[in-house]
């Protein structure tokens, strides 16, 4: 039919084989009752609508849309869309939600009883138009047709039930004889003559029956075919829907499937065919299937900072697999200048844990460590080599060389280690209450073997020093005690004139009667050469310093201060780099001078001091001398102290003088 072909043309996609159009040819045109004119026009409209409406079903492409169009056509074709109730009842997840009109494949629709009855009651054209249009295909229409057919033949249908009621024997008495084609109802012969049927065509009843039977059979056949084809259609539709919806998921699996595809066919080269196969590997593998493999190499950890002592380190490692391990073997040797990583281990330790504290090591030394894991199958490969370092030995404070004043201390020490360390730490606590745990102050990161530490005046401190390297800190050194009362210094033997002897405690200078032969001294020497003098090592901290010198009344001496680079070939006070008080005793007379740059004021002192107090005040640029016993001020220099100065002492005749340290400034001194 033209209509169908029209619609065929409209659908231009490749059709699956089974998916063919359900043509109107299903029904022979001759058989076709004039019930389709409406459908035809309707369908034409549908097709046009579908053609026009190409925006529908976006996303899935033309196939989807075409499918949908076809479905719609069929819907329209069979009048499915008339029955809106059909759509409500239908639930099928497989249908893609693109606006395809739903259709019920096989549903036995329960029709409105009223309508049923109405249908049944209909006669004539009304009934025709309604029912014979094959409006509801499948069940409803089918039933209806059969009912119709049956009605033609004989009997009444039940008014209440959808069933056929076979007329009973007693009805035969009133059975009809002939069939009125026009009215399509069996009538009695005599009824022909009545007005109702006068003009109507009449045929014998058995003929009508036969033709009705034929009709029924034909229709049934067609309907059965329809059913089958619709079933097929529905199947295909379902398949398509499934395929479309699962396309993405299927693609994954398909992709995987494609990837894992292996070559099944390996063509063997002819020459390989002769080769004898070695099965030992296979045997080994076969054997190892039943036994565990040797472990994989452990990973040795870098040294945890501050975890070492002077004689031990704690080595740790890890195993990053599930291998069975029965024990670990840790090997090590001291790091030497020869190429690392190739030499044999000097020591080996076997442990069960993944750590080991290795003892009996040398302080401040680097050791190379590596570890292997062992089980029944054998050893693992060796781990990387890690370098661990022992902590250093403690330093040794040079207690004799400690210098201090009221506000600071200068400590120096010996490293205590042959090799260099990274830095030193000075720790100090106040000594007042040694039992109580006081605050420990630490000065860290000291690069050299000396340090100046700020302190509070009038206290006592205990000081320790530690050495530090990669492995951690050493233990504390032996302590040293510092008192921040007055200033502490020692006479520097490196400066003293050869005729002077300095005592062990560094506080007494003695000039003996006997003149020791002067040794050869170069000009750059640090020793005094002309003045029989010695310099003290005062802490290089500004502020004020006070010390006392004990002298003999009849002693010729000079006491004072000088810059560190004062010319040692000259007398104290003879240049501008030194200041001193000079006493000479001659002819029973005491003579006192206060010398700087060779000049002195004219000063008479009636009572010769036995103990001289010397106040060095950087802040006020003053150097004062006192008679300690009398609390008498003797003299004050005003001196420009642009650099640090050191106490100086000189003996111009045999005798001795003694330095007293650690004395806090007497009150009378403070006035100056």
């Amino acid at each position, binding site marked *: 039919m033209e209509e169908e072909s029209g619609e065929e043309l409209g659908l231009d996609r490749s059709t699956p084989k089974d998916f063919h159009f359900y043509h109107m040819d299903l029904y022979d045109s001759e058989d076709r009752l004039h019930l389709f004119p409406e459908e035809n026009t309707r369908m034409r409209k549908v097709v046009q609508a579908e053609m026009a409406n190409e925006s529908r079903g976006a996303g899935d492409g033309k196939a989807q849309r075409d499918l949908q169009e076809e479905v719609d056509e069929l819907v329209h074709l069979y009048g499915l869309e008339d029955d809106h109730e059909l759509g409500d009842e239908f639930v099928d997840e497989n249908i893609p939600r693109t606006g395809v009109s739903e259709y019920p494949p096989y549903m036995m629709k329960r029709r409105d009883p009223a309508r049923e009855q109405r249908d049944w009651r209909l006669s004539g054209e009304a009934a025709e138009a309604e029912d014979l249009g094959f409006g509801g295909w499948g069940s409803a229409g089918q039933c209806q047709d059969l009912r119709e057919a049956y009605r033609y033949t004989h009997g009444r249908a039940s008014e209440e039930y959808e069933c056929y009621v076979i007329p009973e024997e007693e009805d035969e008495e009133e059975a009809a004889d002939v069939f009125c084609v026009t009215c399509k109802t069996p009538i009695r012969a005599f009824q022909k003559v009545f007005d109702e049927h006068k003009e109507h065509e009449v045929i014998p009843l058995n003929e009508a029956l036969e033709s009705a039977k034929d009709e029924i059979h034909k229709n049934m056949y067609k309907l059965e075919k329809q059913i089958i084809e619709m079933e097929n259609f529905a199947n295909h539709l379902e398949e398509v829907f499934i395929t479309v919806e699962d396309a993405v998921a299927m693609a994954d699996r398909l992709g995987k499937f494609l990837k894992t595809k292996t070559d099944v066919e390996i063509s063997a080269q002819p020459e390989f065919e002769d080769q004898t196969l070695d099965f030992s590997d296979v045997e080994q593998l076969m054997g190892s299937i039943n036994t565990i493999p040797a472990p994989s190499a452990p990973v040795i950890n870098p040294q945890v900072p501050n975890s070492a002592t002077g004689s031990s380190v704690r080595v740790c490692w890890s195993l990053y697999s599930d291998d069975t391990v029965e024990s670990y073997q840790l090997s090590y040797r001291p790091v030497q200048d020869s190429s690392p990583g190739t030499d044999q281990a000097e020591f080996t330790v076997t442990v069960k844990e993944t750590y080991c504290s290795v003892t009996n090591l040398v302080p401040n030394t680097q050791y190379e460590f590596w570890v292997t894991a062992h089980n029944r199958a054998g050893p693992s490969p060796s781990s990387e080599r890690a370098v661990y370092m022992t902590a250093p030995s403690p330093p040794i404070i040079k207690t004799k060389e400690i210098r201090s004043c009221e506000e600071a201390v200068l400590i120096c020490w010996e490293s205590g280690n042959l090799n260099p360390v990274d830095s030193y730490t000075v720790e100090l606590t106040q000594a007042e209450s040694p039992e109580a745990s006081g605050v420990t102050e630490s000065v860290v990161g000291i690069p050299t073997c000396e340090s100046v530490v700020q302190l509070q005046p009038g206290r006592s401190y205990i000081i320790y020093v530690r050495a530090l390297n990669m492995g951690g800190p050493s233990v504390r050194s032996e302590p040293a005690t510092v008192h921040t009362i007055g200033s502490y210094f020692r006479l520097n033997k490196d400066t003293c004139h050869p005729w002077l002897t300095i005592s062990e405690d560094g506080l007494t200078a003695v000039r003996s009667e006997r003149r020791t032969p002067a040794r050869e001294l170069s000009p750059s020497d640090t020793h005094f050469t002309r003045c029989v003098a010695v310099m003290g090592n005062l802490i290089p901290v500004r502020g004020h310093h006070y010390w006392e010198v004990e002298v003999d009344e009849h002693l010729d001496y000079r006491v004072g201060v000088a810059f560190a680079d004062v010319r040692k070939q000259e007398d104290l006070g003879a240049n501008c780099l030194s200041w001193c008080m000079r006493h000479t005793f001659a002819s029973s007379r005491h003579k006192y001078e206060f010398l700087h740059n060779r000049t002195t004021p*004219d*000063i008479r*002192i*009636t*009572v010769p001091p036995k103990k001289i107090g010397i106040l060095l005040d950087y802040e006020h640029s003053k150097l004062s001398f006192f*008679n300690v016993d009398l609390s*008498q001020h003797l003299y004050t220099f005003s001196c420009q102290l642009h650099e640090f100065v050191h106490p100086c002492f000189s003996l111009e005749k045999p005798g001795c003088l003694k330095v007293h340290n650690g004395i806090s400034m007497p009150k009378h001194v403070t006035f100056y």
Partner: protein
Amino acid sequence: MALKQISSNKCFGGLQKVFEHDSVELNCKMKFAVYLPPKAETGKCPALYWLSGLTCTEQNFISKSGYHQSASEHGLVVIAPDTSPRGCNIKGEDESWDFGTGAGFYVDATEDPWKTNYRMYSYVTEELPQLINANFPVDPQRMSIFGHSMGGHGALICALKNPGKYKSVSAFAPICNPVLCPWGKKAFSGYLGTDQSKWKAYDATHLVKSYPGSQLDILIDQGKDDQFLLDGQLLPDNFIAACTEKKIPVVFRLQEASIRKL
């Protein structure tokens, strides 16, 4: 006794005042200068007595010396009395500049017509301190004395005759040995008569020889080029020698310049 303020001037944060009063010892009106440092506003301060030399009044020191800054910094109350009684109308008191008016020599005269008024020693060591202690914020335990020339002599003898009374004594170009110098001989013979034993009681050098030895701290500055030194009026060496022998601590500074004429 009532003090009459004559003047008051702000100076280095403190106050320089001059008072007048009726002196009991001297039987006349006497003026004296007092410097009150800023610290005196809040507490008692040490007292430093200054004795001027020949021809001076209470004004010389406060005008010429420039001591105020130091006094202010150190918180010292400085008292400067006159050098002799004034307006007594004694015959001959104005005849010479080195005897009588302005030349009291810090002695208590025993001879007429001087003995009624010329009692500077008692005035300086007794009456004036009592007056100061009662009327000004001074610490009675902390007192020192210094002076120049005749005043230096006065400071020395006051300290030596009163062991422990003064914490320190300093002198600028003092007359150290008056019994041996022309000034001293003239003054002592006029005020004390001819008995030289009475003179020694007011001679520092002699007093040192019999000093009982209480702690003393003496500082003497002397200008090298001082004419009076060269004229033998001052005689510090005698004093030093005596102190050396007696082990009285003295620091004697012979300065380059001359400290003369205050």
